[in-house]
């Protein structure tokens, strides 16, 4: 179906199911229980999972297939974000133009930067992309303030023209919407102690992510994708056989940049603010880490990596000392203090430490990234009889 073989179809269906059921899967703990802290099924984080998933999938098309390590991909995300907010300001509060234009603008940016950067390969390519992104960041945060809003970021405001929507309606800034369906709209379902939130904005992100994932599969399996893999294996040999690799590389770079722009467009559609620090090298580095962590070159890996990092950032950073004290209050006093003292450096303000340690553990023990971890669990389950399978099924990383 959809021009996919059985295995790819399975991945696509798997991803589709994950995306559709995410609000339920990500809220495994009943509300009010101490473990509810670990629930990730609220709109903002689910949207981020989908958006950064798209960003990482796009980055993986470049890095996973060709081995070209761009260290400036955040610039495209940033360019897309700015374009998106300008659309929301000038044209209409409907998110469709914002998403489309941001993808296109990022594509143009990628074309220009790609034309220059792809003249070099290896580390020299990485540094060229880094240099462009850092310049974009530095200028956006300072001298381009009239266009970008500077360090504060670009926002929608009451006096925006929004020529398609007509004059201002109320004294409040309208929120981005899809033909009247506001991105913040949610339907909540309470079953027993569980509370599940189905958010309109999230499902739009999820649909776009699914389409993005499908296109990525098609690219991976196409002759074009094969050519890109050949470039990764031995570009010299291709050149010697008379194939010009440059157009392929450029096309790949632009596609990858458009994914980043799409992610940027979605990001501002969910939350209409574009800040310059989105383009900083740390943001570019983050997507590199997402892809490597999940498993570069695999289809599902980047999505897992993106989910993993965003989960750590958003969930662990919110565990503070009083939350810990609540958890360990069942233990006797001395024991509880001890447990709090042990865990405390890793959560709350120490969440970076957890992230750093996990990076190292994953790369040391799972050279193929999280995907390899999933495969290991999978083969362990199938190899070790049926009685474990029920329990292990829940440990498969779900985003």
């Amino acid at each position, binding site marked *: 179906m959809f021009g996919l073989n059985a295995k790819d179809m399975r991945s696509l269906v798997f991803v*589709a199911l994950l995306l*559709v059921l995410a609000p339920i899967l990500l809220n495994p703990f009943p509300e009010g229980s101490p473990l509810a802290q670990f*629930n990730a099924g*609220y*709109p*903002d*984080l689910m949207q*981020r999972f989908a958006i950064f998933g798209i960003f990482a999938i796009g980055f993986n098309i470049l890095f996973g297939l060709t081995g070209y390590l761009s260290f400036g991909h955040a610039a495209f995300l940033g360019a897309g974000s700015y374009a998106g907010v300008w659309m929301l300001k000038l044209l209409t509060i409907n998110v469709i133009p914002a998403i489309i234009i941001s993808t296109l603008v990022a594509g143009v940016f990628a074309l220009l930067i790609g034309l220059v950067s792809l003249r070099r390969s290896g580390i020299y390519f990485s540094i060229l992309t880094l240099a462009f992104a850092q310049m974009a960041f*530095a200028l956006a*945060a*300072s*001298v381009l*303030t009239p266009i970008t809003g*500077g*360090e*504060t*970021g670009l*926002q929608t*405001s*009451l*006096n925006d023209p929004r020529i398609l929507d007509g004059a201002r309606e*109320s*004294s*409040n*800034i309208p*929120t981005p919407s899809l033909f009247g*369906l506001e991105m*913040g*709209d*949610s*339907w*909540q*379902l*309470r*079953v*027993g102690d569980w509370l599940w*939130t*189905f958010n*309109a904005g999230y*499902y739009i992100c999820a*649909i776009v992510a*699914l389409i993005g994932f499908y296109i990525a599969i098609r690219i991976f399996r196409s002759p074009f994708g094969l050519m890109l893999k050949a470039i990764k294996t031995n570009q010299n040999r291709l050149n010697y056989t008379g194939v010009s690799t440059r157009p392929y590389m450029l096309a790949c770079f632009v596609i990858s940049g458009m994914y980043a722009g799409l992610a940027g467009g979605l990001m501002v559609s969910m*939350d209409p*603010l574009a*800040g310059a*620090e*989105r383009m900083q090298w740390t943001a570019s580095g983050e997507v590199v880490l997402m892809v490597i962590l999940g498993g570069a070159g695999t289809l599902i890996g980047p999505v897992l990596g993106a989910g993993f990092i965003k989960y750590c*950032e*958003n969930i662990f*950073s*919110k565990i*503070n000392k*009083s939350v810990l004290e609540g958890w360990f209050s069942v233990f006797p006093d001395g024991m509880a203090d001890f447990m709090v003292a042990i865990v405390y450096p890793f959560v*709350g*303000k120490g*969440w*970076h430490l957890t992230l750093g340690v996990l990076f190292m553990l994953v790369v040391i023990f799972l050279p193929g990234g999280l995907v390899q971890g999933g495969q290991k669990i999978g083969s362990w389950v199938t190899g070790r009889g049926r009685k474990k399978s029920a329990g292990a099924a829940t440990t498969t990383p779900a985003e």
Partner: protein
Amino acid sequence: MSGFKMNRRGLLKTSAAVGAGLAMPTIFTSAARAYTNEPSGGSVTLGFNVPQSGPYADEGADELRAYQLAVEHLNGGGDGGMMNTFSSKALKGSGILGKKVEFVTGDTQTKPDAARASARSMIEKDGAVMITGGSSSGVAVAVQALCQEAGVIFMAGLTHSNDTTGKDKKANGFRHFFNSYMSGAALAPILADNYGTDRKAYHLTADYNWGYTTEEAVRNSTEAMGWETVAAVKTPLAQTDFSSYVAPVLNSGADVLVLNHYGGNMVNSLTSAVQFGLRAAEANGKQFQIVVPLYSRLMAQGAGRNVAGIFGSTNWHWSLENVAGDRYAGTNAFVQSFGEKYGFPPSQAAHTVYCQTLLYADACERAGTFNPCGVVEALEGFEFDGLGNGPTLYRAEDHQCFKDVLVVKGKENPESDFDLLEIVDVTPTEQVTYDASIFGGELGSCNAGT
């Protein structure tokens, strides 16, 4: 995939069907509530969004200490701190509107994106009715806009740019901290008294929004006193070594250097300036001087001995009541209870966020509701006293606090790590008040959410 369609009624129906199969389902739609996150049950949740990683992590940690203290006092614990000196007596130490105060914390990372993500998680996941905190104007403006959209109250933490209550002001946002304009207006007369009116100033300005507004404010008010501005050079925010910007200053014909920098920028540029001998130099026949418009204790700690004798402005200082008298009642009560709990005096960031928490709680009590629109109404034009800054007004037009501004100077011989600044003068409110319309922007109307 054609079966996948967003349809509200359909979804509700299926949900109900799914739910009916399970034990006692109840279905809520967001429209069932009067305002965003209306507290149900016996507690109310506040969201403390402070930098916990990155260069301002220590400032964030100090804010968090003050928040915890405020929550303790609101719930009737401790010695009550400034609740005893606060002019409004609506707070009784029994939580807010009889509900126990609980809180969640998040990390802004001093990045607008991360700060918004963290704030959204508090609103969407934890049901926070109020978000507060932060240590930069970029974050404050971003989170304020988010709170406006989501229909919760934002009580700004440390943010000094004119924009927060100027061109980016929002009806749901309130700022207790002072701003660039007030710094300039408060500093200029003191500078004229100490350094004379025929000075030539050289500005180094951090190249972002806060830097621009601060440079503008200090320039305007010093030029009005007769100073001349020789040059204003913008420095990158990410700069760490300012030597190449500082080196040419001495031969530029200027005799005062104004550092429109904050945090690490300020520590590093001041260190460079002192290294290049500007403190000891003479220019135009006068002693060369350095001015830092916005001071904080943590910056002073980072710069060490280099701050000695350098003028700047600050929102509050823990020695205020002892130095400047009863007008600033509340200061000692706060320092006492903070010092007792943590062993050192609070910073201005801690003081600001403590006040913000109390002011919010008090507004809820007076309004009789947590509804943001009620709270806005209670806070607009609210005049109060006893929170350590003397008589203070929360102006209705732009939700900016107006109170006296402190002019401070780095101490020559500090007795301890916390005794780095001495209060030179307190500029009365009238001198730092401005017309609400000069910075543009539109407040809009309060938003209570769905």
